[in-house]
Structure formats: C-alpha cells, structure tokens
C-alpha cells in the first residue's frame, strides 16, 4: 500500500434491538482495531444522524464501508444522506446466510457464533478495504 492510499471510513449500524446490530458493531471493531488499524477509521453513526460537521466531512472525503444489521440499511442510507460515497455495503444477514453454522445470539454480549460471524465478516471486508485503498474503488464487490 502506498503512502497516498485513501483512508477508508467504516460505519456500522447502531442496531440496539437485535443481535445482527451487535454483530455489525463487533465486526467494525475487528476490522478497525485488529485487521486494518492503519487504513480504516471508525465513525459513529449517531454523529451522522445529528449532522455533525466533522463526521460529515469525513464521509464526504473518504470512501465509506457500511456494515448494516438489518434490511433497513441505516448506515448505508445515512452515508448517502450525508453526501458521502458508499464504496461497499455489507448486510450481516447476507453473510450469515453464507455461514449458517455461525448462528449469532445475544445483544449486549454476543455468543461464540456471533463473535465468529463478526470475524468472518470483518475478514471479508478487510479484503475489500485493501482493494479500495489500492484502486480507489471496490470494483465488483459493491454489496456483500
């Protein structure tokens, strides 16, 4: 990766009522703290709800990866609403459909299946982050 590779902002949904929201949050931490700490920045979705200018500027100036817990796709919608560009969007349910053995349970505290599902999702998105930083786009991988 070159020194000019863009920073990728990662925005998980804030889902508080469902397990999938917790998986989205955990996957974002996996990605931003463990897998790609140098190339990613976590942005809190609540700031985009409020229209906080620093957060809006960040999603406008950097490619964004969104991780949503349900079909309402709040994170993806709010990036667009804030004038940003969604380079890649992931829905936890889609990843779970491909990994039915990793059934997530719990909200405040995820079970082992949920933690593993989050890790799998984060590893998939890490590859996309690399692609975005290399080329500036996530060609062919717009939606997981």
């Amino acid at each position, binding site marked *: 990766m070159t020194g000019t590779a863009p920073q990728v902002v990662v925005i998980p949904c804030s889902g508080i009522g469902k397990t999938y929201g917790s998986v989205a949050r955990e996957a974002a931490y996996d990605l931003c703290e463990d897998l790609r700490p140098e190339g990613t920045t976590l942005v809190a979705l609540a700031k985009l709800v409020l229209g*906080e200018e620093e957060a809006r500027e960040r999603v406008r100036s950097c490619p964004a990866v969104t991780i949503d817990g349900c079909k309402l796709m709040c994170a993806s919608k709010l990036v667009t609403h804030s004038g940003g560009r969604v380079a890649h969007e992931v829905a936890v349910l889609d990843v779970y459909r491909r990994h039915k053995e990793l059934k997530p349970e719990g909200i405040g505290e995820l079970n082992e299946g949920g933690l593993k599902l989050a890790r799998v999702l984060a590893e998939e998105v890490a590859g996309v982050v690399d692609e975005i930083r290399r080329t500036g786009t996530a060609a062919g991988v717009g939606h997981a």
Partner: protein
Amino acid sequence: MLSVLQPKVGIVSCSGEELAQGTVARLATLKVLHELRPTHTVTICLPLFLAGGEGDREFARFHPTITVDGCDLRCAARGTEMYSGKPTASVVVDDLVAAAGLAPPEGRRALNDAGKLAVTLVAERIARLVDDVLDRRQRASPAAPSPAPGGGDPDPPSCSCRSRRGPA
C-alpha cells in the same frame, strides 16, 4: 392487549461506536430493557429517525422518551428532538460518571471495571427516570394501570423497528 393498556417509556441510546461512553450508554439501555424495567420500556435505533419511515419519526410522540448519551455531543437527545420530539428526560454518561466520582470508562469494545460500574450506575438512573415518568403519567391519568417495575410481563421488551430481535 396488555401492551395497549400499559404505558411504555421509549429509551433512545446514542450507542456511539467511537467511545467507551457510547458502549456504556448502549449496555445500560439494554440492561434497563431486559432486566430492570422490561415491562415498561421499548427502544428504537437512533438512525431510524432519518433512515426509517414517518412511523419511526413519531416515536417520541407515541412514547414519553428518555435519551441516553455517551458524551456532551448529545447525539441521541438532539437527534430525537430534531426528528421526533422533545425527550422527556436525558442522561449523559460522562456527567453521571463525573458526579459519582468514578474513573472514566475505557474500552469501547470490552469495558474495563470502571466502565462496568458506569453501566450499573447509568442503568439504575434510567430505571428511576422510567419510574418517575410513569408515576407522573399515573397521577395525570389515574385510570391507567399502575406500573410494576421489574414485574413479569408476557409482552417482551421490543425494538420499535418492528423487526425480530434475533435471527430466525
């Protein structure tokens, strides 16, 4: 039918992913919803005020609402007021932690001991506010059923986005 008769207090948490205080807000809200006041509380994801429909934006009109914020940006309180309605009460984790003389929470992903103490502190504060709100409603409308904090209820705490709370 029970859910129609029993008033529910809406709790909106900032869930701020960037800060440990956001994790405290989220976990304290969940503790109230699932353990302390399951009978009388309901929640909604804050982003639904923008990403959802008109029904979601009417949340604070349907429910007396308590917002729970991690920091002084107060995204939940300000966002709720902007898009839904003025919250009945607001809690800020940083303020409660400072007032109680606790150490600042750390570990947005896995809270340290100070963070876990803060979750308990904030959850208990929210629960008292829920009781206060319901008491005031009870006094204003004596015909309404009285709250039974923490009591059993066949109507489980729920997310107002109307989707399932877990995977099928």
